[in-house]
């Protein structure tokens, strides 16, 4: 029975997806009801997942139903930690997007079904302990996302974004399969954990094939997180997608991908990972440069945030390279940064989604002129998100960057830290430009902004507070989770990878 409790979060989400799929045929189910149902299922998953997370300092790793599932699903602190992030991201996305979905007539209850399918896929991805299962999970998430992007199919850019993502995503997926086949060819297995063991046993000739296989998987991974040279799609797809979906993809999906890849690369490719680190240096530099240059010229806010998400990918990769030298602290810095970026991006995208939900206008910088005059609290929140994204102290974004750069230096990649710093400084320009535009113009341009009421603004405000708390919080306020707790959790989850 205990095994069932472990898979309960997955079960709830999957159940939710299927039930929503069924009820979507009924006319009487409105968007609101659908979203509430979604939230109910997600909350149940969240609660059961908290049980799994077991917030003590105990580390565990468990294969549920080992005789049936055959070690293909793993439940450990690590996966639970990521699941928490993912479910939380999903909940936040729904809460923030609810206003948007209601205002945009194209959305139907099927959307929530797909949404839960994608959450299911992502959770499965972080729980996956086998490459083919992981690929299936990835495909569940991706296919749901393809459709979610193109859900408003009367809008050209949505459907185009969906198409582009589908073609290129499938192309990248093929490389994952190719890689899997090579890994299988080299080691005769596709189970994570065993691959590593086998790679120690097999003779050196097959090592090359393993490396190639790993590289192919890495290519898919780089594609999904939009790293150079596989970054082109990101800006089109993200900006073509509905804003809540963009937020969801940029923050939550990225976390899921990292959740899986970290497991794969820490557990299995540990011995050969440094092989890629040298090449990754160039990838990182180019990713940072590309994202920064692209972001700096954007006039549309959404595109800017999207382009800057490429930059954040670069930061995450910096931490990725330091894992081989640092292990625990490198991995935990990725995890922490994912949380930091996740909060900031969800907040920023969500708020912009909320602002633009009434009129379907293109949101540009100039639209925000004097925004602080008409909506001071929203402007303040948006500023907090921008500051966090830019990594200004007193926000969680700073702490995240701090860990990443410290890790990079500790791992001996000072050059990456310097490049990262330069990218940060460029990012200050485009993030601060928004703050400047919101506050420094005396007359407001934007009309038709929804007032500050409903659930979305409250959630966004909480995110803003969380960002600040993440930046300054400490043990001064007793028994309240501060920055340290997040770090400790990240470290524990890292340790759990080696328990099983």
């Amino acid at each position, binding site marked *: 029975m205990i095994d069932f409790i472990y898979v309960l979060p997955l079960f709830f989400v999957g159940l939710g997806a299927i039930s929503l799929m069924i009820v979507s045929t009924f006319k009487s189910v409105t968007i609101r009801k659908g979203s509430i149902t979604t939230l109910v299922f997600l909350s149940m998953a969240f609660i059961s997942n908290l049980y799994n997370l077991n917030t003590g300092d105990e580390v565990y790793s468990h294969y549920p139903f080992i005789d049936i599932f055959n070690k293909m699903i793993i439940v450990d602190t690590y996966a639970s930690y990521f699941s928490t992030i993912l479910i939380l991201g999903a909940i936040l996305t729904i809460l923030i997007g609810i206003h948007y979905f209601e205002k945009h007539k194209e959305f139907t209850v099927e959307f929530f079904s797909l949404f839960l399918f994608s959450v299911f896929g992502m959770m499965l991805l972080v729980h996956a302990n086998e490459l083919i299962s992981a690929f299936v999970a990835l495909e569940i998430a991706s296919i749901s996302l393809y459709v979610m992007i193109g859900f408003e199919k009367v809008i050209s850019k949505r459907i185009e974004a969906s198409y582009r993502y589908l073609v290129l995503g499938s192309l990248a997926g093929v490389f994952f399969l190719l890689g899997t086949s090579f890994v299988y060819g080299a080691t005769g297995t596709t189970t994570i954990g065993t691959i590593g063991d086998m790679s120690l046993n097999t003779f050196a000739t097959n090592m090359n094939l393993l490396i190639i296989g790993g590289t192919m998987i890495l290519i898919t991974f780089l594609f999904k997180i939009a790293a150079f040279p596989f970054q082109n799609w990101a800006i089109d797809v993200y900006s073509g997608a509905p804003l809540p979906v963009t937020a969801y993809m940029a923050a939550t999906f990225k976390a899921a991908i990292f959740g899986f890849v970290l497991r794969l690369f820490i557990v299995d490719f540990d011995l050969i990972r440094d092989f890629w680190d040298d090449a990754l240096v160039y990838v990182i530099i180019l990713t940072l440069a590309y994202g920064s240059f692209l972001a700096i010229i954007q006039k549309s806010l959404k595109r800017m945030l999207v382009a800057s998400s490429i930059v954040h990918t670069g930061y995450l990769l910096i931490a990725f390279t330091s894992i081989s030298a640092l292990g625990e602290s490198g991995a935990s810095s990725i995890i922490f940064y994912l949380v930091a970026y996740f909060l900031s991006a969800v907040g920023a995208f969500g708020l912009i989604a909320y602002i633009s939900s009434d009129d379907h206008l293109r949101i540009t910088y100039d639209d925000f002129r004097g925004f602080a005059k008409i909506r001071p609290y929203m402007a303040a929140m948006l500023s907090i998100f921008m500051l966090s994204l830019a990594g*200004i102290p007193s926000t969680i974004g700073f702490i995240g960057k*701090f860990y990443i*750069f410290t890790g990079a230096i*500790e791992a001996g990649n000072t050059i990456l830290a310097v490049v990262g710093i330069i990218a940060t*400084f460029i990012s200050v320009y485009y993030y*601060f430009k928004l703050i400047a535009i919101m506050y420094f113009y005396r007359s407001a341009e934007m009309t038709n902004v929804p007032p500050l009421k409903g659930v979305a603004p409250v959630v966004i405000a909480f995110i803003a507070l969380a960002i600040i708390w993440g930046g300054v919080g*400490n*043990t*001064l306020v007793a028994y309240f989770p501060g920055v340290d707790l997040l770090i400790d959790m990240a470290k524990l989850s890292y340790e759990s990878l080696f328990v099983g």
Partner: protein
Amino acid sequence: MDFGILSIIIFLPMFVAFTTLILPFGAKGTRNAAFLTSIVIFALVSSVYYNFELTGFLQFREHYTWISSYGINYSLGIDGFSLIILMLIATLIPSAYLWLWEGRTKGYWISMLLIQTGITGTLFSQDLILFYFFWEAMLLPVFMIIGMFGTGNRVFSTIKVTVFTIMGSLFMLISILYLGVSFFNEYGFWSFSLNDIVQINNLTRTEEIWLFFGFMIAFAIKIPLFPFHTWLLQTYSNSPTGGVFLLSSIMAKLGVYGIVRFVMPIFPELYKEFAPIFVWIGIFGLIYFGIAAMMQVNIKKMFAYSSASHLGFIVTGIFSLNVFGMTGAAFLIIAHAMATGGLFLLVGKMEYDLGIKAIPALGGIAKKAPIFTVFFGIMLLCIVGLPGTNGFVSEFLIILGAFGFSPTAGIVSAFTVLIAASFMLWMFQRAILSDSGNDVSKMTDLNKKEILGMLPLAFLIIAMGIYPDWFFYKIEPTIQHYLLDILQIRN
């Protein structure tokens, strides 16, 4: 969790700012609260001043763990050098508030309060990350205040100054992180506390040089030293009075403070080694900016150049590696803050009344506003370095210091007496004194509040010029400590 007095000094303004932000205070209420806060802080700072012991070591230490996994602590403390800057801040801010009394919005006052928090926090931090934290945090309200309440092409210039300064500080951040990692590698635990960081000795020379310049770029931009000064003109010209006041009189000084507080103890050898470069950069800046100021038409830009010129001189002082130069620099920090701050307040009023910044469009102010002119004259003479004002004492000491460093440097730096005088008096003639037929009828003389605000500055300028020693004795042990213990120099 009992907060010490330093924490209260740091966080009281922030607390007031957020309280007024949340509660339905109007602009007037916020202003009164801000003023009251500044007075309370002045009282607190005075008590710190009187309880300060005559040693060169850190006092009023506070130490709490913040992020334990990386050894980041909330660590505060002051020594003599911080003390005088603290006194300066505590004195200047109420004065400035009296000047900014009318016609400001709530956002303005809240920004001012937050700036005060940032400034004092920067001043007290004894942990590198905490320092960086406040250093950046200080920038945001300044960013807001310039951008929201400035004039001219303020959006552009605000972004420019922000990006520019953040660029500098990010290089510092990298250096800080590198130091932290080096410390970890050497001692096996994390700490960013200054006391620990200074004990690092596993750095190679190349590393040290890089890190040194990482720090120096941040401070050089903030100060600003040649050639990192180009943000200065537009920013000063477009800033509102309060912003430019704080920028010129306090924040620029914090750049110098940063050099003394961090660069000197962490890299004592390089500090000594590169001292000639910085002494000469300072002197070069002194002359370069001085000459640049002469033909500047915009009065605020002229003061910007003049400010940069003096800050170059301050840098010369702190790098002169002797007591005279360093004490002089400390003194010039105060003198220049008061005089430049006062001048910017005065010019701000002029701009507020007349809406003019160009010197040729001014003139005949003296007739309209004699008290204004008197204060203007006092501040100006302080800038010029007239004996009897603290400007002279500091300049004299720095020249002494520079001479002690190298006679040539001393002699060249003595040209300061000529440079400031030439453009300042010329400006005074054209803008204030002579009647050039421009319409300045809207100019009003100072009201009682403004006089009250300006009096402490004017009084201190003169008092410190006539009886400097009374203001010196608290800082000298600190300077001696720097030289003997940290740099290990006996001149």
